[in-house]
């Protein structure tokens, strides 16, 4: 991979215009999308190519983005507003481009086969259920960046995202017709998406929605599927990201300064091997790295960008991302995840649950009250006794204090699963925890 010389030409043009700080970013990509619906399937092939420049000095700056390849003689807008300071280049550790990036995009017939297989498996798992809609997007991209601070970066990504919605007849709890459930998932390659596993997850959710009862107020032990714990991790990002994150986390820690149980190790890794967004640099050309935020319950450091730790640059992670050429760099995780336990299966966690709940899906947005250190999360799942499901529960709410949530984690499985966040990916394995409360939200 080689930087397109026109990026340097455009950077030179900005320098000739007298800009002390200047950066040129370019991104091109292609994606195949299959939108499945009962009435009209749509297959799209998109090719996108665009670029952006930031330039400024101590007092003023501008941002300009356009389609195509960079144009050195662009009519730049008037600079205005605050000044601009860009990141100084830092050494980028050795990086081997993953071979998985070279896999071709999923074909139209492969995408159709995925949905057909999914519909078939769903019918098998839950007779009467049907696939209502689906959206598969499989894409690859290449990004390049150069700046007047000697930053030179080039990286590629390969991401497949799937959304499926299924419907089933409503049960006695649904007074108003059929019900539907939606699943979203992400993979490096659409071929990694398994129709049978997805159909099972959809069937579980439909079953719970159809037959689930609102629970009585209860405590006990809980198994939280990744679909449930990831929204909480995501809502708690003010504790993990930014220069004041450690202060916020300290307010949640116990008197000894411990934030969570020994099972709580939280990591962000822009170079996660096999990770969907693994890359040598971020969207500002800064090297990515593995950052341990919490190790065995003890807070280590928040995720910081280069500008947030000027006096200790070693603490910085490359964590400013550019989802598209239209976007300015935005701080966020790459692969933020709760470290799994590779020796433990979900089945063994479940069989060890004498009385409790296996919460499979999050039915809404978590509500976090940082002042009162409390959270609420709408959930549904199964009641469990002696490792076996005894009934399904829905219209439930998991609630408790943030210290109880973080210190209540007893064990983890190996099924680390990532989900798209507003920026980057957040992942978790299934976890077992206690100290929380389940109540009805009916």
């Amino acid at each position, binding site marked *: 991979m080689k930087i397109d010389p026109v990026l340097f030409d455009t950077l030179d043009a900005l320098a000739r215009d007298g800009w002390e700080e200047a950066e040129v970013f370019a991104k091109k990509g292609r994606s195949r999308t299959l*939108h499945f*619906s*009962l*009435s*009209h*399937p*749509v*297959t*799209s*092939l*998109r*090719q*996108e*190519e*665009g670029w952006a420049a*930031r330039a*400024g000095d101590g007092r*003023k*700056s*501008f*941002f*300009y*983005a*356009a*389609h*195509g390849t960079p144009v050195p003689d662009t*009519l*730049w*807008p*008037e*600079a*205005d*507003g*605050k*000044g*601009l300071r860009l990141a100084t280049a830092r050494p980028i550790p050795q990086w081997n481009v993953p071979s998985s990036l070279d896999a071709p995009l999923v074909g139209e017939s492969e995408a159709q086969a995925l949905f057909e297989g999914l519909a078939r498996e769903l019918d098998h798992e839950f007779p009467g259920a049907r696939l*209502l*809609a689906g959206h598969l997007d499989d894409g690859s991209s290449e990004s390049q960046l150069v700046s007047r601070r000697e930053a030179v970066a080039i990286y590629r990504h390969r991401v497949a995202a799937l959304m499926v919605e299924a*419907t089933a007849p*409503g049960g006695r709890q*649904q007074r*108003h*017709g*059929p*019900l*539907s459930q939606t699943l979203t998932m992400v993979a490096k390659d659409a071929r990694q998406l398994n129709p049978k596993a997805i159909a099972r997850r959809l069937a579980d959710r439909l079953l719970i929605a159809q037959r689930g009862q609102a629970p009585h107020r209860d405590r006990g032990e809980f198994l939280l599927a990744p679909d449930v714990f990831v929204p909480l991790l995501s809502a708690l990002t003010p504790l993990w990201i930014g220069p004041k994150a450690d202060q916020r986390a300290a307010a949640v820690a116990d008197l000894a300064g411990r934030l969570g149980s020994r099972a709580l190790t939280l990591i962000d890794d822009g170079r996660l091997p096999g990770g969907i967004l693994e890359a040598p640099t971020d969207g500002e050309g800064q090297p990515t790295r593995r950052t341990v935020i919490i190790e065995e319950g003890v807070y280590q450091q928040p995720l910081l960008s280069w500008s947030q730790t000027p006096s200790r640059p070693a603490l910085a992670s490359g964590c400013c991302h550019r989802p598209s050429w*239209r976007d*300015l760099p935005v701080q966020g995780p790459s692969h933020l995840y709760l470290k799994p336990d590779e020796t433990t299966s979900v089945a063994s966690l479940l069989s060890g649950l004498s009385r409790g709940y296996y919460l499979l899906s999050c039915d809404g947005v978590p509500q976090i009250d940082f002042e009162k250190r409390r959270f609420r999360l709408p959930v549904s799942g199964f009641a469990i006794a002696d490792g076996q499901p005894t009934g399904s529960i829905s219209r439930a709410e998991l609630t408790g204090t943030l210290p109880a949530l973080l210190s209540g984690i007893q064990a983890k499985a190996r099924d680390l699963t990532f989900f798209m966040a507003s920026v980057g990916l957040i992942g978790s394995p299934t976890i077992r925890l206690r100290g929380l409360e389940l109540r009805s939200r009916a």
Partner: protein
Amino acid sequence: MPFSRLDSSAISRTLAQVADEATDVADSFFERREDIELQADGSPGMRVWREEGFAIRLMRQDTTWLAARDGISPEVFQQALRRVARAMPRTAVSTPPLNVEPWTSRPEASEIQAFPSAVVRAVKAHRVSFPFELTVRRHRRWVRTIGTRLASGCEAETFYSIVSTLPWGRHGALVPDLRERSAETLASNLVRSHLARDAAPPEPYQGVLVLGHAATAVLLHEAVAHALEADILSRSGHPEAAIGVQMGSPLLNIFDDPASAPKGVRRTSDDEGFPVIRRCLLRAGVVEQPLCDTIFARCSERLSAGAGRRGSRHWAPTPRSFHLELAPGDTTSQDLVSDAEGGLYLPEADRGYLDPLSGRFTLHFPYGRRIRNRVPEEPVGPCRLQAQVSDLLDKVRGVGAEVHAAGAGWCAKGGVKLPVWATAPELRLEGLEVTP
């Protein structure tokens, strides 16, 4: 107009090479957009986005193929055409000339820079003071559709989005211009929000609700327009089956008319090149004509195309509303709040959601006012209205006589963000429950 010099005959002939079955429809959609933004935090100062591109679409029976590209040139046009072709033509695919006007001027939007101070002045005129920051963005878009059967003229839209960041939350608005009146309307909304910032949410309440112009517009969009989109209707049956169904109170006469939208965003054709129509969604509460694009209109003699919209060239068109109008009733504002002691006046709704399968509808209000002695008085905090759509629309008991352009906002159905506009009167509802 960047696309006025496109040779529609040559493009149409080229597209005809892939539309090789009798019922095939092929079209090309050209798009140019420019956004200019002044950020509240000023870092970096002026932000400019300029882009153009096109998409080629082939519809055969019930399937659509779309190839979208950034940039416009005969070479990439030919590549995209090959992508949607189901079988390669026997002769070489011809390349049409694509004469597009280049960007010539430096990006500039001085009106954006002047607007924040106009809003500050308008807020001061209310004799209140509170901190706020404004992010103002000008959106300009030019589109043209040329197909094997239709070629529209070049359409242009210009409007502004404003995000106000306040200590107690954010407030978003879309306006067709940045004149003094827009600044005053925004200032009034911010002041109302300021006065209600510490108000407690109301206790669960069932009784009279009077929705202001803006809240009515959101209700129309979420509960009526989305419910009558052909793709949404098709999830539970044939869209045509909705025609003739009594969906709400006989007081409701609701239209979607892109041609009467505010100046600057008016349209004469939709994003599929079809001439727009003044579409009567509900006449006396009865469904007359659902929102429909080409692909659904092809399957029915009773459905009319003309409401196909694209978030951008990279998305296939879907049926969406553009500019909703609720015809005025004969009730004065004073009569709407009469016999409503203890009721709620809800001027704005910040979001709504319709579950298309169950028909369950939720509308969120950031604040409201308790009606005392036929006047909206003490503020109440955030609350929400939940009901079945049919119940909700059946509970309309009064439609105001005075209509305002209000309730414009972003609609993000299916992740595709589009501006929507509305002209609406106030609305009186009875017997519905509002909860905190």
